[in-house]
């Protein structure tokens, strides 16, 4: 079940927006495609990231995928637990598997994102 309170991207990232703060992660679909996650490259604190540009890499045994920023801003916090337990992304992609938090530089960018229903429909088109 896709959490209703989140926004989504075509590259299978999710975003939780809280005024001018946002939290990023990857979706259930993405984690299941990747397989067991073995490593997450966390961005540096205070790094500035740009919407649609890669800000992290997630490695599994069979793939290494770039993760693209859903929104622009500067990194305020990273999920250090992923260093020793990268499997949190598989076990709890929307909660314990969050990757980083940012302070938004351009909240209006959120308009470009999909809501839960739109993302669900997008997933259906991929199945074909």
């Amino acid at each position, binding site marked *: 079940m896709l959490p209703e309170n989140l926004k989504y991207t075509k590259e299978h990232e999710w975003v939780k927006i809280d005024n001018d703060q946002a939290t990023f992660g990857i979706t259930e679909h993405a984690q299941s495609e990747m397989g*067991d996650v*073995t*490593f997450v490259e966390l961005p540096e604190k205070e790094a500035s990231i740009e919407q649609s540009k890669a800000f992290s890499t997630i*490695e*599994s*045994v069979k793939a290494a995928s770039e993760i693209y920023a859903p929104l622009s801003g500067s990194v305020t916090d990273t999920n250090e637990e992923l260093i020793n337990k*990268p*499997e949190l992304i598989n076990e709890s992609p929307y909660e314990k598997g969050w990757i980083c938090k940012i302070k938004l530089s351009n909240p209006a960018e959120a308009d470009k994102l999909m809501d839960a229903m739109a993302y669900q429909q997008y997933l259906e088109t991929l199945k074909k």
Partner: protein
Amino acid sequence: MQLIFEKSKDGKKVFPVPGNDTPAKFKLDKKYMRETSAELPQVSEFDVVRHFTGLSKMNLSVDSNFYPLGSCTMKYNPKFTEALAALEGFCDLHPFLPWLSGGARYAQGALELIYELQKQLCEITGMSAFTTQPLAGAHGELTGILLIAAYHEHKGNRRKIVLIPDSGHGTNPATATIAGYQVKTIASDKNGVLDLNALKSSLNKDVAAIMLTCPNTLGIFNSQIKEVTDLAHKEGTLVYCDGANLNAILGRARPGDLGFDAVHVNLHKTFATPHGGGGPGAGPVGVKKELAPFLPVPRITRENKGNFGLDFNSKLSIGHIAPFYGNFLVLLKAYAYILALGKNGLLEVSENAVINANYIMHKLKDYYELPYNRGCMHECVFSASKQAKNGVHALDIAKALIDKGIHPPTIYFPLIVKEAMMIEPTETESKETLDSFINVMIELSKLAEDDPSKFKDFPKTTPVGRLDEVKAAKDLNLRT
């Protein structure tokens, strides 16, 4: 089995080496010396021999097992070439010798060998000139693209893009990127060959090169290949041939005649030099006249008197791809192989390679899905998608084959086929071996229907069962 380090023990006799028979003493300031000795194993020669002999028994290998790894051409490695590569006259020759004034006279045999090998490869591939410097196939690809880049640069416009089909080997896009180009992928059509329309719409004056494997990685020969190369040339784009699949067309078609401007050959595939557990290989590159000025230096030359030498003068050369002339001892084995087989032998190679692959394809197509139901060349690609419906994937079939003493085919490549299994028997296998393989594959397809859960346990007869790759990547332990 224990690690050699775990067998180490203080007090083991030290391997004696020639000691100091001079009156000199070695004095070096402490600041240049290491604090403690390197903790290398302390074991006897016999311990070492037991250890590595034991390790060797834990491998499948061509000499022991059928090894139909698609795209790798795991054919029989003739033993006489190994003996030749051990001759002192080759092994003990210092590569810098012909760089010294008067030094070339001591390396005439080696220089002649390289020179003659180049000539043979030119004739086999239909190219004008060769370099033997590239140290592996991927290294050959890089050399080829660097040559093409130099050619375009010389004409005033390096261009920006390299086109690669979606079926291309991973080394192709990796190579293009190192050479400073952007990669654009071209789709294959429903027949498994390059989609001509997709190609036409992507070709323009920004495209430096197209990298193609011929026959392609599905084992299919594109009958319209000349159209492809002609289209490219109209735009001033050059075409590079990944020669990994040369085994299929030896003596019958030559990349040069098909319009390719450069090609690399894998001596450790087509020309039977051993794979070595992952190398060393050799990837000599052949080129058409227009690319010859850019070839690496030094080049082997022959004077009128018949003496061989080195030519370092080349304003346009891309420089050095390797320190000297390539992996000489590997070149030697390929040279001997070509001399032994000769014209008819090489024609026999492609004929039998293609017969063997087609035989397997026909015998298994009722049991495994054939994504492209047409004749193949030296390798055939099946999909385990039918078995996957029961939870038996290509990986599971591979592990089951290991239990039967058969090295699995290549799996999950090319990327455009789901659950791909690429089978390349090569020409050196007998019908008996092929029939045995076919029977095992049929047996496995039946097991996949009747009792798919059995596959999770394979392999059972090897020193270890399926290994936890996730753990290996997470709990990184890369040394002791």
